[in-house]
């Protein structure tokens, strides 16, 4: 470890911001820049990408010579189960239909906590599904298919 203090969080932040700026800048390459009188679709994004890169660089440079703050715990388990829930719902809501897709999404999300026992998670998912179906599908009349084409035999 080097003797000089540095704020690792801000180093990472600066690098990520610059990476984002490069990504947006690269995406504007195909767009017409135009002139400042008649700005093309690429003009404003190009300016912003440049600005973002500059800010990222400043954050990066200022990170040196400063003490790091503790990063804290990371919710790996939370990320592993919370984030897939809406994605899974999105992938299956058309095919399986609203009711099974929601049930499975709630079941996935319920796994995010170590404290919820599997059986309780199952019960909770069933309750959530029934309540949501009653409220959103029957009550508010949202135009979702309750059971989709994948389940029609």
């Amino acid at each position, binding site marked *: 470890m080097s003797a000089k203090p540095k704020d690792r*969080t*801000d180093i*990472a*932040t600066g690098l*990520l*911001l610059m990476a*984002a700026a490069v990504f*947006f800048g690269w*995406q*504007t390459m195909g*767009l*017409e820049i135009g002139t*400042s*009188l008649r*700005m093309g*679709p*690429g003009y404003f*994004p190009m300016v*912003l*990408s440049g*600005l*973002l890169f500059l*800010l990222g660089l400043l*954050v990066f440079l*200022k990170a040196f010579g400063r003490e790091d703050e503790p990063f804290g*715990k*990371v*919710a790996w*388990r*939370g*990320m592993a189960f*919370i*984030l*897939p*829930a*809406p*994605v899974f*719902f*999105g992938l299956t*809501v058309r095919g399986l239909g609203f009711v099974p897709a*929601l049930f499975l*999404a*709630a079941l996935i*999300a*319920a796994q*995010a*906590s*170590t*404290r*919820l026992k599997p059986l309780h*998670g199952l019960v*909770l*998912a069933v309750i*959530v599904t029934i309540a*949501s179906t009653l409220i959103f599908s029957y009550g*508010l*009349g*949202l*135009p*979702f298919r309750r059971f989709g084409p994948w389940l029609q035999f």
Partner: protein
Amino acid sequence: MDLLNNLALGFSVASSLANMAFCLIGVILGTLIGVLPGIGATATIAMLLPITFQLEPVSSLIMLAGIYYGAQYGGSTTAILINMPGESSSAVTAIDGYQMARKGRAGTALATAAIGSFFAGTVATFLVAIFAPPLTTIALKFGAAEYFSLMVMGLVMSVALAHGSVLKALAMVVLGLLLGLVGTDIYTGAPRFTLGITQYADGLNFVALAVGVFGIAEILRNLEDEHDREVMTKNINRLFPTREELRQMVGPVLRGTAVGSVLGILPGGGAILASFASYTVEKKISKHPEEFGKGALAGVAGPESANNAGAQTSFIPLLTLGIPANPVMALMIGAMIIQGIVPGPNVVTEQPALFWGIIASMWIGNLMLVVLNLPLIGLWVKLLTVPYYILFPIIMAMCSIGVYSVASNTFDLYAVAFFGLLGYLMSKLRCEPAPLLLGFVLGPLLEENLRRAMILSRGDPTTFITRPISATLLLLTAAVLVLVFLPQIRKRRDEVFTESDA
């Protein structure tokens, strides 16, 4: 007597049985979610937003206003009872409120918060009704250059009022602006940043961004460390304050209302600043400054009033200029646009029923809060004891349904997951989400006005400094930026925010 006529119109709209019911449902739902620990008003509104889209515009915005007040009050309840403010504006309430609760005066603290909020809300509602219409006439004189400069000012102010590093907050604004540009360019029809995915041609879904960055990121943060909470449920004494306590309340509430009303109008999140400012004022003029931090009544009454007054008057820039003053107003603007209303000076003349209906419903929402929440406090407190692991699967299901119901676009659900990850990453890297959301909402508007201003001035960029209103706004912006970077102010600003974190 235009004002009275207008208010009468507003109340006739807002007090229709259906709209009252929606307002009531909004307040209940808002409190229900807002009272959950660690979930602030912004996250609550983001999650409940989609529910309102099924209604017609007036009812939907009235319900949203109800949700807002409910969420705010719910946040204060959590701050007082378990010292877990969901939002920086209720962080100030937590300092003395929690201490009051520990001393067995939780009931008094809760009642003080409600009464202070109600009084401040009533005054601020009148202020909105008085000042919004004349401001719209000024707003009608605004050209593209003025709008551009005003939005730049709003964005810079939001940076100045954000926690932590100014540089990072600026970066978040720029990132938000870029994300706001995703979709089809309005002038040429060229797709931008869509990665070839046609489902994103209309831009990224605003609800998906808000739910992801605020809602899901909050859930992940809460899952980092699952532990039991200490809830001050046993200590709720009688609710209604004594005459002596009422007398002590008057001064702080009045001062808080004044401070909050003025600061709330500022673009960029004045309401947050308001509760800090009020706390500082009360501490300075108090005869017993040593009581602050140990359960001073004034430390709850002042900031809570200031917060609510500020929240109310921040509707002024939204309703007159169509410029959101803070993340919550950004959510409101998103809701209006989805309902097909373009927020701005024309709303008051073209849709007076909507305009005055919202103003009247603000007051009704406030009233319902007092009538409903104080007697029901026992119920909300019970809710605090529901374990978190039961709540978040329910919240995730609601978010998924809500986001999907906006446009039945499954790609919005993928965007929610992405923004949830982004929001969590941002919180780990100590970047504030509020400037990002403001940037996202203002991105397209900012670009459109910039382009229009440049065409109008025939490509002459000095148009922004030769037009007097625009020049003043830019000058103010520059002044704020300079102030924020001055070493002394910076130190002071850090102190204020550290105090609230403690």
